[in-house]
């Protein structure tokens, strides 16, 4: 059962990694990437960096 699960998971591209999924991103982002606001934007302003 474990082997079957691992095989199926590999085929479906499952992973432990998790990323945010965003739907309906407009095509205009291609021409104007600055118009898209990432969930992770402004990292260094909050974290301060080093």
């Amino acid at each position, binding site marked *: 059962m*474990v*082997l079957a*699960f*691992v*095989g199926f*998971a*590999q*085929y*479906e*591209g*499952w*992973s*432990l*990694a*998790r*990323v*945010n*999924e*965003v*739907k*309906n*991103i*407009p*095509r205009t*982002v*291609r021409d104007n*990437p*600055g118009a*898209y606001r*990432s*969930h*992770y*934007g*402004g*990292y*260094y302003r909050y974290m301060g*960096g*080093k």
Partner: protein
Amino acid sequence: MSQPAANCPNCGAVVQFRWSGAVQTTCEYCRSILVRRDLNLEKVGEVGDLQREVSPIQIGTEGIFHNKAFQVLGRILYEYEGGGWNEWHVVFSDGVSGWLSDAQLEYNVSFLTTPPEVLPPADQIARARLFSWGGVHYEVTSVTRARYRGVAGELPFEYWDKKDVVFADLRSANARFGTIDYSEAAPLLYLGEAVEFDELRLKNLRDFDGAGPAGSSPKVTVSGLNCSHCGAPLALRAAGHSLSVVCGQCHSVLDATDPNLQVLEKFEAKQAIKPVIPLGTRGKLEGAEYEVIGFQVRCTDVDDMPDSWDEYLLFNRYRGFRYLTLYNGHWNYVKTVPASPERIQVGKKPGVTLMGHTYVLFDTALSTTTYVRGEFPWRAHVGEKNGIKDFIAVPRILSCEITEQETVWSLGEYMTGAQVWQAFQLPGRPTAAQGIFANQPAPFAGQASSMWRVCMNLLAAVILLAIIVYLVAGQKNVFHHQYSYAPRAGAEASFVTDSFEVKGHPSNVEISIHTDLHNNWAYFNLALINESTGHGYDFGREISYYTGDGGEGSRNDSVIVPSVVPGRYYLRVEPEMANNAPSMIYTLEIASNVPSAALFWIAAALLLIPPVLATWRAASFEGRRWSQSDFSHRDDSDSK
């Protein structure tokens, strides 16, 4: 066999010899002992009254030993303090003469042998002395001073009117048997082996009230007697074998060999102990029916803590005596072993080997009998003390009991209460077993090793699957480009890459970032966006690399985006650095159909759980078993 005949010189009856080599015989009619001077017979004595016939063997009995047929032609009867035994003279089909000894229904076959060395005289033979002949190590297990009681039938030598005779019995680890016979001026050596009743395939046995050995009921005759002290009725189930019988009413120990049942001792019992299996109960064990004829309670005093167990004596008229022991709900079926195990060392513990099995010392104690009831083939009495050593090879336990007269080895096999109840058809249910007994089989025995075998096979399958997946996955680099970034306040840092194709089935897409950072950091806001559907995967990665104090961080990073459906994608990239940071050159690589190694590690961990749990459980059980032994680590001051 030729059968010469002659006339008895005393009564004139025809005396027919079954064996041409017979030197002495007895007249069946007048019981004269006759010595053959060829076919002239000389009377040299008379056979006295022999004890009540309790042996199943008789003159004329036939059997098989090592595929050779034999017939019982003669008998010598001996008696000693511990009882009596018969030496049956047997002649094989090839004319060879041998001896079948029958002592308390334990059988040995032996043959007169030329001693390989000079045998010690009777006053120099002692128990535990060792001999080594023909590659076999023998140990003297008993030295017996016996009284000659009589002869019958044909013998290969002249033998009558003997007085006390000394015999030294020898045993080896593989049931080889020997006797040094001091009845003649020069000691005689007989060597052979112990045999089980069933191995001899005896026929023409003595008929005890119509029942035979193969019958379901050996029909033990119960002799009705009365206690000579209190008059209470007594049942003697093994008359002729029992040496003592205990009155259940007044607790007098009586001499079972005395027709008047002389009182040997009387003990005070604070309370009458009722055996779990009542005396007289019959049960079937190892395919034979046994009757419970005796019961005793014995105790030890280990670490100042008294501990006691019950012993049941079982009797079968052909197969002899067996025992059932009971301790805290744990049962053992025990029989004496006609062998003397070899001492060895098993790791740090003493051990012995017997019949090809290795036993490890479990504990040593001095036992005291505290209660007796019923019959016993020895002078059982309250206060009887024996040294005991227990060796285990689960599910067997080999016990050595040492008395002044002899060393007796007994082999026990673990039984559950349910098995005992089934064997004796007892009502109700047995008492539940408490704790773990020395030779109790582990309930999970064998599970751990079989689970490890299965686990290893499955792990091999996981590895094979991983290899196949990595070979078949078809990992493909779909994008590779180098960029540079110089932070400028207020400038728009984000950009989008060229489109690339993710083909095939939903799979992991790995995005790798390689930088030339040095004592600096950078942050990447990334979004993988499907051109057609507008579906995006939004994530960020921080990369930092610092030298000094052993270094910290890495110039590279990667991220797996799971289950990305096939299609055309582009990457939106927005790097960030400190405003005064120097410019950075970095490379973006994107690969599709990337297998996830983590899943294989998870599968391996899941597969390891059952065998690890089983091993821990088995180890825990063994730890609790050995905590009861002389080798426990509970109290270092008492460890041996």
